[in-house]
Every structure is written in structure tokens, then in C-alpha cells.
């Protein structure tokens, strides 16, 4: 990759993250607006499987977004002073406190992710045990009622998963390039 590559990837990452955040805000706003103004779901019960765009296009979009997420995270530029290999051992108490705060932030983010999974599982268990729609039917309903926005939302989620969970090679993780 050329020397400008990581910088381009960094700006692409920022643009993709903004776009993904915008799509998630739009999806959340649409869900709130619709449910606040309509008593029932926006589709038939159970939701139909076919909608526009066809499912294979949705799958392709999600796969492309997953790969884009991985590549944007793998190629983006990182300031060398923030790389683990470049960090000197924390000797003073202030440095140790700062490292501790950084670790706390990362563990907090991981905890937030686990809490999200827990909330989804609790909803799923309660819904299925009381004869309600599982989450998959809401996703299918959204796809049925608003195919392209739902495709964009699914692509945003898979972009983020590709960016966060698809591990780069060890050398990439250590050099940040």
C-alpha cells in the first residue's frame, strides 16, 4: 500500500462511520415515528418473505459492507505514539492511572456490547414464551415495509461487525497499518 493509503483509509473510515451512524439514527427515528403514529405493524402477519430489493441483493450488500468494515479498520492510519509496541512501560503513578483508565474504557465498551446481547436475548425469550413475534419477524417486517432503508441498516450493522470483530493479521494489529 502506498504511503497515502492509510491516510485515505482513515478518512474512508471516518466517512463510513458517519454514514453508518446516520443510517442507525435514521432507522431509530423511523421506528419511533412509525410506532408513535400507528397502532399496528407496517406489514402483514406473518410478514411476507419477498420484498424490494430481492434478498440476494441484501445479502450481497451486507457481505460487501462486512468486507469494507474489515478493510477500513485494517488499513487506517494510527499515530505511532499510540501503538502498544511504542508505549514505554508506565513508571509513574500518573501514567499507571492513565493506562488504567484506557483499559477501563475498553472493558466498558465490551460490557456495553454484552449488555446489548443480553437485552436482545431477554426480549427474544420473553417474546417467544408469550406467543409474541421474535426479533427476526420485526426485521422481516421492516424489510417488507421499507426494503431499501432496511437494507442500508443491515449493511451498517454488518459494516460495524466487520470493522470490530474481523481480526486483522497480527502484524497489522501491531503496526496499525
Amino acid at each position, binding site marked *: 500500500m502506498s504511503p497515502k493509503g492509510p491516510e485515505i483509509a482513515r478518512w474512508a473510515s471516518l466517512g463510513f*462511520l458517519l454514514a453508518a451512524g446516520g443510517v442507525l439514527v435514521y432507522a431509530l427515528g423511523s*421506528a419511533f415515528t412509525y410506532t*408513535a403514529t400507528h397502532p399496528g405493524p407496517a406489514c402483514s*402477519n406473518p410478514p411476507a418473505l419477498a420484498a424490494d430489493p430481492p434478498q440476494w441483493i441484501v445479502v450481497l450488500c451486507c457481505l460487501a459492507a462486512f468486507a469494507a468494515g474489515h478493510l477500513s479498520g485494517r488499513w487506517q492510519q494510527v499515530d505511532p505514539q499510540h501503538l502498544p509496541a511504542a508505549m514505554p512501560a508506565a513508571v509513574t503513578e500518573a501514567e499507571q492511572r492513565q493506562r488504567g483508565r484506557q483499559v477501563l474504557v475498553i472493558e466498558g465498551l*465490551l460490557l456495553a456490547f454484552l449488555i446489548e446481547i443480553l437485552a436482545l436475548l431477554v426480549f427474544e425469550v420473553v417474546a417467544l414464551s408469550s406467543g*409474541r413475534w421474535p426479533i*427476526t419477524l420485526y426485521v422481516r417486517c421492516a424489510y417488507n415495509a421499507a426494503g431499501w432503508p432496511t437494507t442500508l441498516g443491515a449493511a451498517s450493522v*454488518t459494516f460495524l461487525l466487520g*470493522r470490530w470483530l474481523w*481480526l486483522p493479521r497480527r502484524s497489522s494489529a501491531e503496526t496499525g497499518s
Partner: protein
Amino acid sequence: MLRPAPNAAVLSVAGVALGTLLMLVGADFALTWTRRLPIGSWVAGWARRYPLFALALALVAGGLIGHFFFATG
């Protein structure tokens, strides 16, 4: 036949799920903007330190994605 859940329950779950993702997006954006290691690199470091936890987490996340997005019935 299964019925839709009350609107308040659906909105609560959607708010928690998408809100958490938005918070993580904001954190990743800030890390990328300041040229620090992005969240993925921290997750990679954590996964290499705790491979069994990472494997379990990947299985759960993959199962959830398949469960939520891949409905054929």
C-alpha cells in the same frame, strides 16, 4: 399465530440495541479522528489474550445475526 409485541417493548429493545451501537460508533469515530487504535484493534488484542472468551463471543454474535437476519420459514 404469533402476535406483535406492544409498541413500548419493541421501542425499548430497538432503543437499547441501536443506541448501544451508536455509542460504540461515536467512540470509534473519536478514536479514529484522534489517530488512536480503533475499537477493532482493542478487540483483537483482547481476543488474542482471551481466545476462548473470544470464540464464545463470536459464536454468540454469529448466532444472533443469523437468528435475526436469516429467516426462511
